[in-house]
């Protein structure tokens, strides 16, 4: 394959990871934005989503689309509910102190990860995609008789990958509508801006926090359900999404939703493209250092406006 088609393939792969990353990172960003805490166990909620998806698909049997559709509902709800309970049992009791929350969520990370190891086992398990038609893609070439379309060998994607991109975009649109257009969004924004004034206007801040924590975890779980037919479920799969989400949330400006999505697309695409051409480890080193420098020299993020 020549460079052009190759780049296009890399971009498509990058778009899939960008879509999933955007969902995961928006969940983390939501929690940080409203509650002002960093959830280190976020990656484990992602992993749980994948594990639940596998479990649902495995138990239900039948056509893969059935299990997948059910998992799309069950995994976010179950994981979100678990997160809300964790919020109630642990975070609420430590008063959402930022540093203690980090320590407590590190604890949750180990508990969930090792719980999955005990219940789910150390193997990576695949989930069958609901549909998976191979779609060959055309490329434009300058030929002797001017422009023409060619179908290079290897330049292809699957219907499922396109679905992932579309589904993620649809969910992100839904989150945006929820935040900007709904009563619940208004309540969340008010809570984010001034906890005490929210209380003074009858907003039950405790329940909002539990809800936001659950919603954030649910989004991560949903992202995992989407990716698991491509990637397989494994009890250690939460590390990378956590790190990448951190990167995205920081670059996008802590707590800003549009910035987060923009950064997710940027990081997802670069990650996809760079790791096709370079060593993925080198890409990660550079990305990690870049993020550290952004935090040091531009704490409001690359796309954030001003620090509060």
């Amino acid at each position, binding site marked *: 394959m020549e460079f052009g088609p190759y780049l296009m393939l890399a971009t498509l792969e990058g778009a899939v990871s960008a879509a999933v990353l955007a969902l995961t990172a928006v969940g983390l960003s939501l929690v940080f934005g409203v509650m002002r805490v*960093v959830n280190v166990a976020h990656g484990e909620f992602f992993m749980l989503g994948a594990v639940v998806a596998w479990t649902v698909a495995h138990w239900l049997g039948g056509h893969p689309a059935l299990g997948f559709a059910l998992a799309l509902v069950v995994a976010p709800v179950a994981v979100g509910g678990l997160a809300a309970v964790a919020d109630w049992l*642990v975070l609420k*009791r*430590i008063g959402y102190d*930022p*540093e*203690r929350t*980090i*320590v*407590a969520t*590190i*604890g*949750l*990370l*180990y*508990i*969930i*990860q*090792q*719980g999955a*190891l*005990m219940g789910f086992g*150390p193997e990576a398990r695949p989930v069958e995609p609901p549909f998976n038609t191979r779609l060959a893609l055309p490329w434009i070439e300058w030929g002797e008789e001017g422009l023409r379309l060619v179908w290079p060998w290897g330049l292809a994607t699957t219907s499922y990958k396109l679905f992932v991109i579309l589904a993620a975009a649809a969910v992100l649109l839904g989150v945006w509508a929820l935040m900007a257009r709904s009563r619940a969004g208004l309540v969340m924004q008010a809570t984010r801006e001034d906890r005490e004034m929210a209380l003074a206007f009858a907003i039950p801040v405790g329940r909002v926090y539990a809800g936001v924590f659950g919603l954030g975890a649910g989004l991560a779980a949903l992202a995992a359900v989407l990716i698991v037919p491509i990637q397989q479920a494994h009890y250690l799969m939460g590390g990378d999404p956590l*790190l990448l989400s*951190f990167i995205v949330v*920081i670059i996008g400006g802590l707590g800003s939703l549009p910035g987060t999505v923009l950064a997710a697309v940027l990081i997802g695409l670069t990650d996809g493209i760079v790791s096709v051409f370079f*060593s993925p*480890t*080198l890409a*990660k*080193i550079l990305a*990690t*250092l870049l*993020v*550290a*420098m952004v*935090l*040091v*020299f531009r*704490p409001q993020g690359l796309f954030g406006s001003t620090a509060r």
Partner: protein
Amino acid sequence: MRGGGARAWTLHLAVLVLLLAVQFVLPAYHHGNLARIMVLASYAVGYNILFGYTGLLSLGHALFFAAGMYGLGLAIKLGGWAAGPAIVAGLGAGLLLSLAVGALALRTSGVAFMIVTLMFAQAGYLAILYFGAFTRGDEGFVIPREARMIMWLDLADAATRYFVALALFALCLLFCLWLMRQPLGRALIAIRENEERTEMLGYDTFRLKLVAVAISGTMSAAAGAAYALLFGYVGASFAAVQYSILPLLWVLVGGAGTVLGPFLGTLFMFYLIDIASGLTTAYMMIAGVVLVMITLFARSGLLGEARRRLWGWLP
């Protein structure tokens, strides 16, 4: 904190004498464990100087531990250095890295400081994997027995190993005890208690915090170098995020901002996980449960609670 000095020195020296004495009665398994615990506890003491006394929560100390370990290991493996100069290489690597990381990370505070230190450590870990040609990546490498000699001391020998581990630990412990009675140590505690006030008393808080990072990082590197030398193995897993979280866990369990707390926490968690791993493969779950329980019920850890309730004079 006036007075109580003689009592504190007596207590800590007594603990060290006890550690010296028990080696003659311990079975070989626990003898080896205790040597390991003392090296790891030295790491925790170093971590505690930054976290417990200065109030800066780093999630990147594995970088400094690994700097000591690889500084020494690579000097031996690639440079063919003797153990003595290699130790200096390990300490130097830790000092330089901690100064560099500190100078950058200290421009932030709170949650951002944790994330920045985490990121730097992650970059360091990935770098070890990336340069696998030299570091042997995940697999790591063994330090040959003939390199583990300092003059006539054979560090691979169990009894010698115990003595050296104890010496390192005693040095770190007594240094910490001494430091916290100096104006420098007091100023670090002041930063933890109220940084703005400290600045307004005329202290250059940035410089003081940088000094704290450097002391803490170098002590962590010393522990890393000692670990490599005493147990003969250098591996990337010691640079992974888990080894940044472990000292935090040990210090929290034992009591942040107490001199003996890190040792107690290391001892407790080591044996807890040792026993748990006999029961289940998911032994890290114990660590998770302990972390959550500490944040919920025992903010100040074992020794911190003891100080709060029983012995106010405890340093």
